[in-house]
């Protein structure tokens, strides 16, 4: 499969491209395994964000790799690990077996009660935002942490010195017109994904990524620091922080209302209604944080000059 090619390729640009393809394939596999939401995310993240980040990093570090050695010890470690894994799976429940313990203990409640208790058809969103809402709070914080870490490491150069090299692309009329035309639709599509996470695939995380990708596309084509004027870094940091605060705030609100942390039932008189509202708010928080953090990271990478 593509994976092997990825390993063997020595030109890192090609690798970035191939990992994108690999992500597409993985996402296709996820679709086939009924994991629509995951496929959505994997596509957006693997093929979108990771590729763009990888490329912008490669711009800074150079793309040619030296020939590699193949130490036997690595093979040994890998072999042992692989053997352990195979050993482990030998008496695993069969693939797709509906009677596997994984499907009979905790999961049925999500499937049977999720749509009723949380009031939304998409069980993944229900579990994500409500039953395991705390994980998702953690996830949002992880994103914020990554943004912070990149900020700490690279900082963001702001101001007039971010002139992208004037290149063929810099004044690429067809692209400019087209991107300008597509941008509102991409953004709106992102927001659509945000709002319809309750019903179909999608949710705050995916939406944040899509919206950010739209802006990244704009920046790639228009360059010249325009995007930094549209969405200044300071705004983004604040938006990221506010996103987490919205999420945490919902939790704290339920604390003050005399319920446990993150109990959305506290938000409205009718528990199901409260759940719905809570999930909506929480997803909004996730979306804001993800969108702004992805852009922060992108700024950090693209604003940095290549040093020799």
């Amino acid at each position: 499969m593509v994976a092997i090619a990825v390993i063997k390729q020595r030109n890192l640009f090609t690798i970035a491209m191939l990992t994108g393809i690999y992500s597409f394939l993985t996402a296709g596999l996820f679709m086939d395994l009924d994991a629509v939401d995951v496929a959505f995310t994997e596509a957006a993240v693997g093929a979108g964000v990771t590729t763009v980040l990888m490329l912008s990093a490669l711009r800074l570090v150079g793309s040619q790799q030296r020939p590699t050695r193949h130490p036997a010890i690595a093979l040994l470690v890998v072999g042992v690990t692989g053997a352990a894994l195979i050993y482990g799976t030998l008496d695993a429940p069969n693939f797709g077996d509906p009677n596997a313990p994984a499907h009979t203990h905790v999961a049925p409640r999500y499937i049977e009660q999720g749509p009723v208790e949380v009031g939304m058809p998409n069980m993944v969103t229900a579990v994500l935002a409500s039953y395991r809402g705390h994980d998702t709070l953690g996830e949002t914080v992880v994103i914020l942490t990554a943004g912070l870490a990149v900020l700490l490491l690279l900082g963001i150069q702001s101001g007039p010195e971010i002139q992208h090299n004037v290149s063929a692309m810099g004044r690429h009329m067809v692209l400019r017109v087209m991107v300008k035309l597509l941008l509102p639709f991409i953004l709106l599509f992102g927001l659509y994904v945000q709002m319809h996470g309750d019903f179909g695939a999608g949710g705050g995380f995916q939406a944040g990524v899509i919206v950010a990708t739209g802006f990244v596309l704009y920046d790639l084509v228009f360059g010249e620091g325009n995007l930094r004027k549209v969405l200044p870094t300071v705004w983004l940091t604040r938006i990221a922080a506010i996103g987490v605060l919205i999420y945490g705030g919902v939790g704290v609100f339920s604390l003050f209302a005399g319920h446990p942390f993150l109990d959305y039932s506290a938000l409205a008189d009718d528990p199901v209604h409260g759940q719905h509202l809570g999930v909506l708010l929480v997803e909004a928080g996730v979306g804001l944080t993800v969108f702004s953090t992805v852009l922060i990271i992108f700024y950090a990478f693209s604003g940095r000059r290549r040093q020799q």
Partner: protein
Amino acid sequence: MSLMDNLPVLVVILPLLATPLVLLLGGFGRAWAIATVACWVTLAATAALLQRVSVEGPVSYRLGNWAPPWGIEYRIDLMGAYVLLIVVAIAALVLVFARQSVEKEITAERRVPFFAAYLLVVAGLAGITVTGDAFNLFVFLEISSLASYALISLGRDRRALTAAFQYLVMGTIGATFFIIGVGFLYMMTGTLNMMDLAERLPEVADTRMVRAAFAFIVVGLGLKLALFPLHMWMPDAYAYSPSVVSALLAATASKVAVYALLRFLFTIFGLEFALGDVPLDLLLMALGLIGILFASLVAVFQENVKRMLAYSSVAQIGYIVLGISLANTTGVTASILHLFNHALMKGALFLALGAVVYRIGSARIQDFHGLGYKMPWTMAGFVIGGLSLIGVPPTAGFISKWFLVTATLEQNLWPVAVVVLVGSILALIYVWRVVEAAYFIKPASQGIDQAGDVSEAPLSLVLPVWVLAAANIWFGIHTDLSLGIATRASAALLGGAP
């Protein structure tokens, strides 16, 4: 629900939500103030929590008000509360120290995000200790790890970058192994809740899958806690990171990883499985022993005091693991006790070192010449920490070593006890090298910058050092509190589910 009922969640969300506040309000002074207030309030909450747990027994908290196997549960038993106290107390003390140290070592535009990341480390570590859900533990593990990669990379030496990168690779492999293991467990039991896992595992314990899961979780956590052959990332990471960061991480991060290991070994897999079916006890013991000897030896030859202390940490992990591998009450008590005491001594040592770096800008042993007279308070603190590290009687270090030796002798493993003593002697040697440099060697006249302008570090730096140094002695003499909790915690662990 009263405030008391919400304590378990408060200890996590206070630092967690203080982070965006720090980012929003900005400003170095304000960031520091918010972080400090958050940490101290958390400390108060933790103390109250410990009090409550020790009276009422384990506390469970349902997040989102979903019943445990479905929702995420926080579950705090005595050991959890105890480790939590260590983490938060050290974090709060280090913050006092941080204000001036950070001002000196971190460039201005990075200070605000620095405190934000600091809070995230604390929140992540606190989350690991209180959570009762295997996957939630992974999430918090990653929060704290990601933040600490960034913090480590802020060291002024460029090797801080490579150290952070190495840590990132190793840490991610560890975390991925961990989720493979958790995934296997989930496949076999259908649950992620720790208590539920513990209940359902015995039915399926005799399957290869569970054994593989066990192996992956142990290796994964072993990577995080720098168990001997997997320790490669640690010395560099501690040696090149900013003083504040080394103090915080050395005193807390590996403790929490040990805690997670204990959780999985004893609470989830249960004693019989963990140390009976699988010959893990022998393996752990061997690794612990080799770790003690090897790391102590390497430490003796280090020129950089920070690096020396980092290797010494690897050795101390060896002691802790050794205690676990003995699998009797005394051994585990010794481990838990050492967890606490090691946090105290390493905290004191790294902070003292931070104060030295603050003044002379170096941590090499030859720059220590004559420091004993120029920075008497700092160096005195360092010496007390060092004594505790060696295990000299009136200090806390002595108590835990004593218990460890007793435990080995209970099992009639006197060669092991000898190794422990040898380790202490090696510790004596490397601590002595610093002491010798500081007190008995005159500074070379052409010394770089100690031409008389080196004076005692400011109060905000010395105070935390001394609080910890004093704690080392206090807990060496008044053992009731620490020992009592450790004994009860280990009894609970070994007695199966607390």
